[in-house]
């Protein structure tokens, strides 16, 4: 009896371990030749094509909301001239990586999980292994790298579009001055904020792709299994990304002192 309950309690640990082992397999696969350049480019293009427009559309209201929130608050402090800097700080440090993560997991990750899941239940992955080809090296590695690349670019896109959206709302709706908005850009934000945003995006892309690939490759039980795999991969990725984001932000603040205007 005790062994049964112990097995149940430890089951999540086992699953986490398997996911981690899969991640290590992927990392090992990255260095194995030949590298699947064609698949990599195709996947990067595919992920970019399903994420660019939604990301841009999410980034505009994101920037706008920050502008509205911060703008109202900062006016009460009498520090309108710093609206721009607050907006940049929020978008570059947090909004960029988070919006990127949501879109990469929601649009890119779900597509990867569905694709690999369908291949799994159609026995395509088995056929590939039988033909002497490792699906991790052949299919997963290019997807993971493509996801990481696209995440970095999306992060840049969100930063630019978000800041531009903030500018529009601040200047037009809140009657801020364009000069003050632009001039205060670098008052609080610094170069390392951009770097940490990029690194976050890179790691979020890695996690999203690995979770999606793992779930897809372990789909089972017919078409419903694929649906479940997609669903689980999105939920798990979201949870992991928010936790990792918290940890990375905490580390960042320990490492890089805040800039004092």
């Amino acid at each position, binding site marked *: 009896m005790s062994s049964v309950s112990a097995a149940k309690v430890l089951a999540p640990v086992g699953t986490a371990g398997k996911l981690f082992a899969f991640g290590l397999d992927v990392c090992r696969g990255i260095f194995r030749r030949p590298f699947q350049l064609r698949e990599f480019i195709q996947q990067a293009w595919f992920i970019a094509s399903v994420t660019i427009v939604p990301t841009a559309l999410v980034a505009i209201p994101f920037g706008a909301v920050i502008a509205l929130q911060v703008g109202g608050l900062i006016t009460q402090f009498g520090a309108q001239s710093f609206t721009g800097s607050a907006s940049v700080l929020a978008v570059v440090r947090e909004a960029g990586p988070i919006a990127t993560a949501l879109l990469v997991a929601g649009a890119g990750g779900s597509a990867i999980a569905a694709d690999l899941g*369908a*291949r799994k239940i*159609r*026995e*395509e992955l*088995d*056929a*590939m*292994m*039988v*033909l*002497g*080809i*490792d699906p991790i090296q052949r299919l997963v590695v290019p997807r993971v790298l493509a996801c990481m690349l696209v995440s970095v670019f999306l992060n840049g896109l969100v930063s630019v579009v978000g800041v531009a959206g903030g500018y529009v709302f601040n200047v037009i709706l809140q009657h801020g001055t364009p000069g003050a908005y632009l001039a205060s850009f670098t008052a609080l934000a610094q170069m390392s904020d951009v770097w940490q945003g990029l690194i976050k995006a890179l790691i979020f892309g890695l996690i999203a792709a690995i979770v999606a690939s793992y779930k897809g490759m372990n789909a089972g039980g017919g078409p419903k299994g694929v649906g479940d795999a997609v669903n689980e991969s999105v939920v798990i990725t979201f949870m992991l990304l928010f936790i990792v984001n918290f940890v990375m932000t905490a580390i960042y603040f320990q490492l890089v002192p805040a800039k004092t205007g």
Partner: protein
Amino acid sequence: MGVDIKIEGLTKSFGKQLIWGDVSLTVPAGEICVMLGPSGTGKSVLLKTLIGLLKPDRGSVVIEGVDICSCAEKDLYEIRKLFGVLFQDGAMFGSMNLYDNVAFPLREHTKKSEADIRKVVMEKMDLVGLIGAEDKLPGEISGGMRKRAGLARALVLDPEIVLFDEPDSGLDPVRTAFLNQLIVDLNAQIDATFLIVTHDINTARTVPDNIGLLYHKHLAMFGPREMLLSSEEPVVRQFLNAQRVGPIGMSEEKDADQLAAEKDMDLPPLPPIALQLDPSNGIPRRSQRPPGEWCRENGVTPPPGSFLQDSVLAGGAGA
């Protein structure tokens, strides 16, 4: 020239449910074997264990001195190059057309030029009768065509061992007959070891050199075709003759009441043993034995009417 597969003490269970236990047999080099069994007895699981896609709980599968169940991943990928596998639904890569699907193993594992690849691919496509369908995507063709395309892909690396997972499921009788003839002709041509998993009795009676029967979580019998076809063993007899009387019930096994009710029923006499399917050029295969040889050697009287030309079932031997 084909290699043999030595299976010893193989046991596999999923969780607490035992699939089959202690399966031991040797699939002889260059011969055609059929593995039979009622639905759900783990025939496909056995096939997947033989190629290392599933790990058994115990036992070994030895091919050319390498134990597939315990060797390193790297050796496994090496040994798999000896295999050609036809999956149930063909398992074609959905994103590639048939030509690229068949060319895939060549492009991955050989340094052949595109012209050479084209020659090999077209030869195999011709063999399975798919010339003209090279540009179709797997989603656009029928199940039978997918199966034949899968066969072309399985053969493209000139395998030593060819495994068929239910080659006849979902095919009409005429196509099944053609496919069976194709299997026999292929064996005559390339002398590889063939293992067919099926529950089509007609295939089992006319195609193979050896038959195995999986039943009730173990290997009930494995041996030459004539041995099983003339066997009085209840399970073997019931299955090979598609009868309701016998130990196999609708759900796996019959209970004691049903068996007691059947006790006095007379089993219908064994039907005559049909001739084995000959290659279409008429020259017997290297591993083919003369009809009735096993029965004579072992002093078994085959059922009356066996081994007559006209007793050939609709197995495709129209010649």
